[in-house]
């Protein structure tokens, strides 16, 4: 290789590296509000596990391999109360079942990915990563894959960190969730959902889902989250179809 082409290659690799690091930083920054919003819950999960007589290893394995917010909390209480294994697993399944919707929505984007991307991104597919994956070209091309891995990975690391703080310092800290810090999660989701309402059908989906979520929760239904989301999705979908029908009819008349 001549000196010049060597220099060019060096410069190119430098550009490539700075591109990658910029994408990683962007993924991290986009996830940051969500990383911060779950601090109270992460600490609560960790400290609750210790209070319910989990060993440190067991308490660490919860965020490390189960890696779920509400499922972790509820299951920790159930295990602490010596609930039957079937109850614990069934409850985990019910709480986690909303992820089926995420997988279905992202199926066409993710099923063709090579294993080395699909398995880790599937593992990282939380509410939070799904919230950042709504772009029509999400997971397409290396840049967007690195972005997803960086944002999803930063959430994983932060969740683990907050749990560790709860495990080792939980008994010295006040219960942050009683301070109303669950508002942080609500407001982050508001900031993500509201700007995505681009037409009347999405607006209707949001309103129906929100109304149902309150009603179903007050009724104490176990599948409240998934059912209300499905109701909202049906409402939005049928409105969209109706609008398309009306539009195509008016075009026929013209």
């Amino acid at each position, binding site marked *: 290789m001549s000196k010049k082409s060597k220099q060019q290659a060096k410069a190119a690799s430098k550009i490539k590296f700075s591109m990658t690091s910029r994408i990683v930083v962007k993924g991290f920054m986009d996830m940051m509000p969500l990383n911060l919003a779950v601090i109270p819950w992460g600490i609560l999960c960790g400290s609750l596990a210790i209070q319910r007589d989990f060993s440190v290893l067991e308490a660490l394995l919860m965020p490390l391999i189960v890696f779920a917010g509400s499922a972790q909390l509820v299951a920790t209480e159930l295990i602490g109360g010596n609930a039957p294994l079937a109850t*614990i697993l069934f409850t985990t399944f019910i709480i986690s079942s909303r992820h089926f919707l995420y997988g279905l929505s992202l199926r066409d984007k993710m099923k063709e990915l090579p294993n080395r991307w699909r398995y880790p991104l599937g593992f990282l597919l939380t509410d939070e990563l799904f919230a950042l994956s709504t772009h029509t070209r999400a997971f397409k091309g290396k840049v967007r894959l690195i972005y997803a891995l960086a944002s999803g990975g930063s959430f994983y690391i932060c969740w683990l960190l907050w749990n560790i703080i709860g495990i080792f310092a939980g008994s010295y800290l006040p219960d942050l969730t009683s301070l109303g810090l669950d508002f942080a999660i609500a407001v982050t989701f508001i900031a993500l959902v509201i700007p995505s309402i681009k037409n009347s059908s999405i607006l209707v989906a949001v309103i129906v889902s929100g109304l149902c979520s309150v009603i179903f929760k007050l009724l104490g239904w176990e599948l409240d989250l998934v059912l209300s989301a499905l109701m909202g999705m049906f409402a939005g979908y049928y409105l969209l179809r109706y609008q398309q029908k009306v539009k195509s009819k008016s075009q026929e008349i013209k």
Partner: protein
Amino acid sequence: MTLMTILLMAMITFLTRYLFIHPKIPLRLNAKVVSFLSFSAPAVLTAIWVPIIFIREGTLALSLNNPYIIAATVAVLLAAKKVNIYFILITSGALFIALKML
């Protein structure tokens, strides 16, 4: 025993996330289903945040004494104007804390 339970739980959470993105699952989504699923993000995320605002300790808290409602209304209005997410978090968060201290 707890260790075994945790391992089984991990398998369940991974299964629910991964199952439908696996290529070998014999499942083809037609255009109608894809259109239906396009509503999943706003619908699911809304079903997560709305109960936090309106339900306090298992009962409906539909009053202006509920700081969650006022602060969330401000957040919704700011978000509708596509204000920066950090600005929304700080403004509505500060308002929320102020209302709680009143």
